[in-house]
């Protein structure tokens, strides 16, 4: 159960349109190397979260990239990140999150492994493309603190 590039682009454009309607923070970035979504915010502990949704051509699925930084710009280590979210996860740290080179920006980001995404999406294979995308985003995003308004799920 995978996405084509066109399907992915449609989904992120739709999410972006919805985001504007409900005055949420998603940004759509278009580059010759690909289009992707960004969601940034600062939490109550002065930690800055940056989430990117990028298409993986290798896996034909969306992938969630993220960085969390202090306000002075310094990045949280994987250990720090894991401690932040340990209560949301019950699996091995290195099996879910690694640091990788962002495929479009080519600088370090944490990534939630896409190798299980296809299996996850099989659970909603009968749903529309947009619903599949939101399902994926709600599961992966939730495990790393990405707030997703319930308004997106409403058609």
């Amino acid at each position, binding site marked *: 159960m995978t996405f084509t590039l066109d399907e992915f682009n449609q989904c992120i454009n739709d999410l972006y349109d919805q985001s504007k309607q409900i005055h949420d923070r998603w940004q759509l970035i278009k580059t*010759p190397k690909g289009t992707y979504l960004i969601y940034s915010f600062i939490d109550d502990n002065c930690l800055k979260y940056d989430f990117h949704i990028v298409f993986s051509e290798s896996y034909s699925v969306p992938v969630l990239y993220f960085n969390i930084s202090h306000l002075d710009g310094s990045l949280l280590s*994987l250990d720090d990140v894991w401690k932040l979210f340990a209560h949301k996860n019950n699996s091995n740290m290195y099996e879910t999150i690694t640091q*990788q080179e962002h495929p479009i920006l080519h600088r370090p980001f944490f990534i939630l492994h896409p*190798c299980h995404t296809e299996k996850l999406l099989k659970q909603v294979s009968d749903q529309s493309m947009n619903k599949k995308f939101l399902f994926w985003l709600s599961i992966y995003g939730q495990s790393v603190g990405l707030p997703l308004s319930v308004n997106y799920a409403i058609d």
Partner: protein
Amino acid sequence: MGQSIDDKEITRELWQSRLPICFILSDEDMSKVNRSELPEPLYLMLARHSYFPCIIEKIHRYYSTYFKENVNETTNNINLANLWLEFESIPLKWHYPIGVLYDLYASSVSSTSHLPWQITVHLSKFPEGEILRFPDKESIEAHYMSTIKEADALKHKGQIIGDMQKRDHKQLWNSLLQDKYDGFWNINNKLMNYTDNLQYFRYIPFRVYIVDKPFIQKLFSPYDIDQDKFMTLNDLLDFVLHHEAQCELLANEKKILNTNVDDYQVIIHGIQPPINTPIQWLSEHFSYPDNFLHICLIEKRT
């Protein structure tokens, strides 16, 4: 692709190739040494297909006698955990195999001898916006495994790596660490099989490196069904260079890269393979242990 005894010998030869490297402490860190004698350069012979983070500990141990451990762990302080490597002012992206970095940065056309490869060791001001952190061996293993999984996703939709036992994954990594060719290829051979009734891989896992540019990775099939022929290295590079030039045009870059394959030296594992080699064969025999073909393009100087 037909397999001969000679073909297997090639993979063994590539496994054995080494680079002599000389590590020198940066001037900035040298000035903070708290002993009367300054550290001598550290000479190591490293496998081209291995990764610098695998020897962080070794470099760590070598320099630790010259510095007191700093309790404060922020990025800018002298701290062995902030160790990073640099060549000619470029922080080395050490998640790339050692041989790739050498071929890309140190082996240019016009020079005489670049060996041993002289690399500067830094112990402060870790450039975390540019290079990955590997705080332990497990993090290097995790990165390696994610790359090999991606390669299998391209080649076989992940079917082969997915069907393997965890201990097979461990054997790949441990054989790489312990330099065990047979242990490695006993498992890696499975990743070179064909699936789905094809006589080739679905897509070829590859990355093309050109100096001062981020690497280029695209979907590329090793077989042209319409023309009923196997694609060559030349075909792949032609495709990549033209695609990259398109992106540069769309991004309004001032200078567009040269799209003529003949104007580049094409280097894999320090070797220039014939440009008409089938890319399927190269993928099976010239890939790095992460199952990717890492191809360096160096512009020829006229």
